[in-house]
């Protein structure tokens, strides 16, 4: 008997169970690809949008101007020499003629050469009337002197200078004649016609002339509205959420309020416009087209967003903070205002800024309260008529003249920059003050 050292039976590896490893790996790889494709589609759309806006709009930041030696001829401005007794002659004088004569002299055209003089019509912007008038009214002593002044070329010349008008089509079918193209090339070669930075785009009010129209009124209007939204929606929204989140007992009533707030956040903005028209204008008698009414309407629209964000931020503060404060003898109000609220601030600010950014981009509610309008004068108070940035974009999109297309894209770029700054501020605030537990 040999040593009864039993040989152990060779351990049989258990039959390999099919746990679908291959399939699961494949599914994972597939999913990653789905994700990449989804992101690429999003990025492509964004890129197409940005490229099309920027490529159409970047030219609007330059405006074609002509340097003209303008003689403030007393014979043209004040032919009867009455300005000492009647200052209104300085306002009603025919300033465009001064610019036309200066242009003719610069191009070497004799005033008797009627066909050439006719071609000068529409070369210089009619905005020169106010430009020169303001110079004379500010300092009447320049009458009789000659000054070099940069004046705006008309929108059609501007479009042609920027190559936006196809000069290949028949002359009768375009807004710029061959003669004007000749003048334009001559002035450019002499170095007195050039693209200047378009300050007017930022400071001018609305205008029917593309070259003198700007977003000044819209920027001020949007600023007033954002200020009103911030001053009203933030305190009201925060107070409402603190009460709902920290103090109110959970009853059927608070449930109903909560459902309603969530619903309001999803209501189409035009509904708020209708409400604004009925309540603020027709009932309270506030003025039409005023930034105040726009601000109030946008406040209503932004409130639910702010309340929801604030409640989420308050709910994210751990209960231990409250318990500790209460345990050390703080009252409920002290616990909330001295401990919970500061910790929730970054979340509240983020929600507020995102709500404001949404309000900044709204047009629909403003349509009904009369803010989709042609407003040329600066609003000095929120009670004066004003427009808003997206409204200006909409108005320019509907214009017939070619030159408004680039202005519209330029305005979109400006609006996007504003939105970007607001969103970056939200991110920075969150990063700086956020506390993690």
């Amino acid at each position: 008997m040999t040593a009864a050292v039993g040989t152990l039976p060779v351990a049989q590896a258990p039959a390999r169970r099919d746990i679908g490893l291959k399939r699961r790996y494949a599914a994972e790889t597939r999913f990653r690809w789905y994700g990449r494709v989804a992101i690429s589609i999003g990025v492509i759309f964004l890129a197409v949008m940005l490229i099309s806006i920027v490529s159409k709009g970047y030219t609007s930041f330059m405006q074609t101007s002509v340097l003209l030696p303008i003689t403030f001829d007393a014979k043209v401005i004040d032919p009867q020499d009455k300005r000492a007794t009647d200052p209104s002659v300085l306002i009603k004088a025919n300033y465009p003629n001064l610019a036309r004569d200066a242009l003719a002299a610069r191009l070497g055209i004799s005033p008797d050469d009627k066909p050439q003089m006719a071609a000068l019509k529409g070369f210089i912007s009619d905005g020169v009337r106010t430009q020169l008038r303001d110079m004379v009214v500010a300092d009447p002593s320049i009458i009789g002197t000659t000054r070099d002044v940069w004046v705006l070329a008309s929108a059609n010349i501007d479009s042609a200078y920027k190559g936006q008008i196809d000069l290949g089509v028949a002359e009768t079918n375009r807004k710029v004649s061959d003669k004007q193209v000749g003048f334009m090339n001559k002035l450019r070669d002499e170095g007195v016609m050039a693209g200047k930075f378009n300050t007017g785009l930022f400071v001018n009010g609305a205008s029917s002339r593309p070259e003198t129209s700007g977003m000044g009124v819209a920027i001020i209007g949007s600023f007033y509205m954002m200020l009103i939204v911030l001053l009203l929606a933030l305190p009201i929204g925060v107070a409402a959420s603190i009460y709902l989140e920290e103090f109110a007992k959970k009853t059927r009533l608070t449930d109903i309020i909560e459902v309603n707030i969530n619903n309001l956040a999803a209501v189409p903005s035009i509904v708020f416009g209708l409400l604004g028209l009925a309540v603020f204008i027709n009932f309270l008698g506030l003025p039409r087209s005023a930034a105040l009414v726009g601000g109030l309407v946008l406040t209503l629209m932004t409130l639910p967003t702010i309340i929801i964000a604030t409640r989420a931020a308050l709910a994210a503060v751990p209960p231990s903070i409250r318990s500790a404060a209460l345990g050390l003898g703080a009252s409920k109000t002290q616990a909330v205002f001295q401990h919970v609220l500061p910790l929730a601030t970054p979340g509240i600010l983020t929600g507020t800024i995102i709500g404001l950014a949404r309000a900044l981009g709204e047009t629909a509610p403003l349509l009904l309260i009369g803010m989709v309008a042609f407003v040329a004068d600066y609003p000095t108070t929120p009670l004066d008529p004003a427009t808003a940035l997206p409204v200006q974009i909409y108005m320019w999109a509907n214009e017939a003249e070619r030159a408004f297309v680039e202005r519209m894209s330029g305005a979109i770029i400006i609006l996007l920059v504003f939105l970007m700054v607001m969103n970056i501020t939200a991110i920075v605030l969150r990063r700086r003050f956020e506390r993690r537990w």
Partner: protein
Amino acid sequence: MKKAILTASAAVLALAASAGIAAARDQVQIAGSSTVLPYAKIVAESFGETFTEFKTPVVESGGSGAGIKEFCKGVGEATIDVANSSRKMKEDELKSCVDAGVKDVQEVKIGYDGIVFATDIKGPDWALTPADIYKALAAQLVVDGKLVANPNTKWNQVNPALPDWDIAAYIPGEKHGTREVFEEKLMAAGCDKDAVKAAGVGEKEVTKACVAVRKDGKAVDIDGDYTETLARIDANKTGVGVFGLAFYENNADKLKVATVGGVVPSTETIAKGEYPVSRPLFFYVKKAHLGVVPGLKEYVEFFLDDQMVGPESPLAEYGLVAAPDAERQQQRDDFAAGKTM
């Protein structure tokens, strides 16, 4: 910080409350037709530049109907002073005005506007007649004495002289004032009413049957404005679009205009009454506001001045067809005399 926010909020609320009894409005307010808007803007801007003692009027857009509705809300500071309209005010609109206390409405005709058909600039020349348009775009046609769904799919089936293009027309949507002119001056004019009547349509229904536009996708309603129509033509080079004359003239390097009844649309042919598809443009003034709202009377007078609406004026340059001399004088006289509707 918190206190500052509270104080500021209280200030805004107080401002909102006090605005109801704010000082008198010192600016003319206008609303209405998007066709009249560009003209009103030019006048408002020049007005602000010429009369430095008045503020520049505020011009809202939004459509003739919406403008008149706003106009007819009543008299007083919170209501607008002028309604622009690309059509005449309707009877029931005037009635609603009177019911709301706007008893005296002054009508002002500023000139005429033409409606043109245009195709892409590279396309062939087009010569249309109202009958062609009716045959191409009507919902139902009379074939062998019976009313049947419009069988035409190509323009050359309508008229052999037209190109071999699929019918694709971009016409103004129903909320536009332009649509009414399109129906009246083209569809109804091109329709053989007797044939439709013979096909068994009741007397009252004839016009309705004539102006009904096909809904099978060959005629597309454009509810936006002409910029959208232009974009459609850009995308579909064999499309035909309906534009205002002023819009076409501003985009003549992209569009080729069709003749209607052999007449090329232009300010001259419309002024002479040769081009058939044109309409008058109006604005309406509240008499009760004249002399109350600063600048309103001056604005209307400035608008009617020949340097604004005459044949050699900025409005004519933009595309408005000036009314004949006698008619313009008549408008000025009527306004000065305070003639109401």
